[in-house]
């Protein structure tokens, strides 16, 4: 059998064979299955992924009828990030009218709740004007980003400095205090955006600072749900498992540290989330096939137990997408179709 052009997790091109791709698919899936204690992919799923990776075409898609809804993180910022000089309402219209977006998100350039809080009242009129001019559902989104609450950026002692000194209890206390402030900031800012008419709140990149970050987000979702029973709340994760930076935090008597997507989603549901966005991080030292099979294994297990819609994170460096500023279309389309088809996703 001839060689096949393939890519590594960093996007670099390699030459491989169908036999090697199949070996990578099995190894990637079994890695996820072992770590998450979930089932590996089935033979027909390996065969499907092998087919799309062996296809000579640049672009792969789902079959008609299997299309899903797309949600975005920080969409308006990505127009500005590449140096296109349009304001945020125009950026939203570009997504809506030119890019085939099913939903979109208004966001501030400093994409975290802490910096948004003091300027939230300046964000509201922009959101209100955007809602008058656009048609598709509009989220307001930001990251919980608990790291901003530690010194020197925030008011609380830095746990990363306390732990090496053996001050474990002090570090844990700092995380707990910071989480309380984060919950309040998320609820305050989200409430203003909902009062301005937002269709939903996107709590994006949750858990980036570990279990305390995840806990603060769950508690915020719980409070937003109680205050606004009909509003859409999307919780998107930052990694495939919750880092145990505090290590002893629980939500509804379940320890958060070390949770994988199929466990995270049950807590998101309990907190009142409408949509959950699981993540599987890309390993740049492994092939695209290894990464996609691994991601599909984690996310399929999550979809199987979920009661709410699942929108898998498929941006740069997650969901089988390569880690590169310009992810190649061949890999993105294969990951998009492969994940959507195997996991039976509700969205991306």
């Amino acid at each position: 059998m001839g060689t096949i052009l393939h890519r590594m997790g960093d996007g670099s091109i390699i030459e491989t064979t169908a036999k090697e791709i199949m070996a990578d698919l099995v190894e990637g899936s079994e890695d996820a299955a072992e770590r998450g204690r979930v089932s590996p992919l089935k033979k027909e799923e390996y065969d499907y992924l092998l087919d799309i990776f062996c296809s000579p075409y640049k672009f792969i898609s789902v079959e008609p009828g299997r299309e899903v809804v797309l949600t975005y993180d920080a969409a308006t910022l990505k127009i500005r990030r590449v140096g296109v000089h349009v304001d945020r309402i125009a950026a939203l219209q570009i997504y809506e009218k030119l890019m085939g977006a099913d939903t979109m998100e208004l966001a501030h350039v400093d994409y975290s709740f802490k910096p948004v809080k003091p300027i939230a009242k300046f964000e509201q009129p922009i959101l209100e004007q955007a809602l008058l001019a656009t048609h598709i559902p509009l989220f307001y989104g930001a990251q919980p980003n608990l790291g901003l609450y530690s010194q020197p950026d925030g008011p609380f002692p830095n746990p990363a400095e306390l732990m090496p000194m053996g001050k474990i209890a002090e570090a844990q206390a700092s995380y707990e205090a910071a989480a309380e402030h984060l919950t309040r900031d998320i609820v305050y800012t989200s409430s203003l955006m909902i009062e301005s008419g937002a269709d939903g709140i996107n709590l994006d990149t949750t858990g980036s600072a570990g279990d305390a970050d995840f806990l603060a987000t769950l508690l915020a979702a719980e409070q937003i749900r109680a205050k606004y029973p009909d509003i859409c709340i999307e919780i998107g994760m930052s990694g495939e498992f919750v880092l145990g930076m505090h290590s002893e935090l629980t939500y509804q008597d379940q320890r958060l540290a070390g949770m994988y997507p199929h466990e995270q989603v049950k807590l998101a549901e309990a907190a009142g989330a409408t949509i959950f966005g699981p993540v599987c991080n890309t390993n740049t030292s492994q092939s695209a096939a290894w990464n996609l099979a691994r991601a599909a294994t984690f996310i399929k297990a999550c979809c199987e137990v979920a009661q709410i819609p699942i929108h898998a994170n498929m941006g740069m460096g997650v969901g089988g997408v390569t880690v590169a500023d310009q992810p190649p279309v061949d890999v993105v389309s294969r990951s998009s179709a492969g994940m959507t088809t195997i996991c039976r996703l509700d969205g991306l």
Partner: protein
Amino acid sequence: MAITHSHASGMGGMRVAGDLVARVQMTRGMRIQEAKAYVAEKLGVAVADLTDPIMMTEVRTDLGLGLVTPLPGVPKGIEAKFNIARVLDIDINCVQRFKDRTA
């Protein structure tokens, strides 16, 4: 990358019925197949029609649900969202607040 996902797996936004299916997911918490069936029933079309831009442009024009190309005289922006809320029998937050502020 957003365009690649839109072409590979996305419904296609307001070129078709992607925004409508999204609204049903967001307001009623439906999984994708259930949401598509709900929207198709409300629009009086087959599920397969939801991603056909020819069929959906006709449906969106007839029901005033908003068009990519803003023809003169057809509902746009918040006007179209009033119609979307009525046709899909869902609450849209900004539509409700518009009513509250102008009543």
